[in-house]
């Protein structure tokens, strides 16, 4: 309802009691509620999420992809590095459903195995960036002053670098192991979240429940843990999930440039594409498979992130 509460500054807009209709008290001294069980904000969020079809479908598809990648050893018809020298650069057929590459390796099996590394990189980068970004954002926002100035100057400086050039240089300096790639990508992925978290903390800090906690003598660490963090979950979850998609894309880009995870040890969706760029016209199946795997995964993750935004932060775009 859009009517304002009376009184100057009565900022009650938008947050009408939800879930349970107000039950008037029957003239007695205590008030009571009608529904039997409390409804937590998390359950409300889940309910809202389940109403969003694209997000729910994306969860299902992503689930299949994750299972396929996790159990690649069991599911894939061939090993990731297993060569069939009789079938080099074969198109899709009964044995090799998605064809083979220049070394006679089965394309489908490599996509399944490669998904493991691609997803691992994506998720790990997102988690590291999420942790670092959250920590820096909370500290900067809550303490303010010199701590804030220092941390945010660092963040802004990193954000104002020519990003891709820096990543490429860093990737060249480090090796081509999975963890090198994770390190490089995490290094540039945390700033956005740090700024988002700091901005939200600055507004939360002004909210009266944080002041109330301070007024009760609650220690700073407990305020950050119990009052700030739970109210940041929406922003953090959404940003982290979108970072998963961005990191998968970034890993594939680095691999395409020959700077990602080494193709000699493992397959990743990215290095499958990077190695086969020259065969676009002669063996297009090599480019279709891993490319679609990346696109579908990133698309699902993006849809999930969008669904999370709507369900965890219902104030955004209500009407």
């Amino acid at each position, binding site marked *: 309802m859009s009517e304002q509460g009376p009184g100057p500054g009565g900022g009650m807009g938008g947050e009408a009691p939800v879930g349970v209709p107000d039950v008037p008290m029957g003239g007695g001294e205590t008030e009571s509620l009608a529904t039997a069980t409390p409804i937590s904000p998390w359950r409300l969020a889940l309910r809202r999420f389940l109403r969003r079809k694209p997000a729910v479908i994306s969860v299902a598809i992503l689930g299949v992809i994750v299972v396929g990648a996790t159990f690649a050893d069991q599911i894939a018809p061939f090993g990731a590095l297993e060569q069939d020298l009789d079938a080099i650069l074969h198109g899709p057929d009964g044995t090799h459903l998605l064809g083979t590459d220049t070394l006679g390796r089965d394309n489908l099996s490599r996509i399944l195995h490669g998904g493991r590394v691609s997803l691992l990189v994506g998720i790990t980068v997102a988690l590291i960036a999420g942790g670092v970004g959250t920590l820096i954002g909370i500290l900067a926002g809550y303490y303010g002053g010199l701590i804030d100035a220092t941390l945010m100057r660092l963040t802004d400086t990193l954000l104002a670098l020519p990003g891709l050039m820096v990543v490429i240089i860093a990737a060249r300096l480090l090796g081509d192991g999975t963890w090198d790639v994770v390190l490089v990508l995490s290094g540039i992925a945390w700033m956005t979240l740090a700024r988002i978290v700091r901005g939200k903390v600055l507004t939360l800090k002004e909210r009266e429940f944080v002041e109330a906690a301070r007024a009760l003598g609650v220690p700073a660490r407990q305020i950050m843990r*119990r009052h700030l963090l739970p109210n940041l979950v929406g922003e953090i979850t959404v940003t982290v999930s979108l970072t998963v998609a961005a990191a998968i894309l970034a890993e594939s880009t680095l691999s395409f440039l020959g700077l990602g995870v080494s193709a000699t040890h493992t397959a990743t969706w990215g290095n499958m594409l990077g190695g086969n760029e020259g065969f676009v016209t002669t063996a297009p199946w090599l480019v279709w498979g891993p490319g679609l795997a990346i696109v579908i995964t990133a698309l699902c993750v993006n849809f999930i992130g969008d669904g999370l935004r709507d369900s965890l932060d219902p104030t955004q775009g209500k009407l």
Partner: protein
Amino acid sequence: MAHSEASRPFGPETGPLLAVDGLVKHFSTRRATLKAVDGVSFTLEEGGTLGLVGESGCGKSTTARLILRLLEPTAGSVRFRGRELTTLPAAEVRLLRRRLGIVFQDPYASLNPRMTLRNIVGEGLAVWEPRSDIDGRVAGLLERVGLDPAFAGRYPHELSGGQRQRVAIARALAPEPSLLICDEPVSALDVSVQAQILNLLADLRRDLGLTILFISHDLAVVRHVCERVAVMHLGRIVEIGARAQVYDNPRHPYTAALLSAVPVPDPAHRHRRSRVQLAGEVPSPLDPPSGCTFRTRCPHAAERCATEAPELARRGADHPVACHFAADLPLAAQP
């Protein structure tokens, strides 16, 4: 244990429970200085109720936050039971806060939406007395403020505004404070719910012997709740006195103007009341007028007002007024 430690430094002494003297808070930006609170002094006796009234931006809420040291004062002194608070080290500030409870204006912003009522109300207990029977005491507190103890597992979004404000009061009462600061506790509530909360505060004060500092822009509410009243204007107190003195015999032109501006829900008053219409714009607190900050809107302003800031009369007077002409002005007593 925490209890005995906490009570000793703030133990009972003679004199007022709370004595604020020359309190100042300036917020500085690169361009300007905002004198939010500019030399506020008052005392509050144990068991008393003092209303701090004024319009938005007059510094009344800042004063509350300075007393609790949620903000650091620029200058001045706050003594609680004779003990100076403004110079307390940070660690002891936390001990102090146990004795001072606060209820905020907006019941929608003052409760953490991710916590159950049990945790909201119990947090103050858990901090100070982690080993006590928190569940039992939370139930008692909820009942005390007129809520079903079964609410403990609920979340704020399941409650109405009035119910939330009851929770906020229960939270403030949990550590058993001796001073309760209410910062616009009913101004976000509907009229039909306001009365419930005001009555609850009156009951709590009677039953628990609370001392209350009541901050509000609503003169009618303050008249209802407070025995003494201080009127603030642009960071300063311009008049302070007993309820009857301030409401029936205002000595500051600003107080008189405020009183006459309050709409009365009685059509018969419509033509009978003499409304002191203030001319001009409310001055910006970033650029207050010289001398008396009210002079630009004051119907009685004289040359002296522009050059000399009137002092709130010194101690001794029971109804001090910060106006050069307080003794001479023909201010109409209100209905």
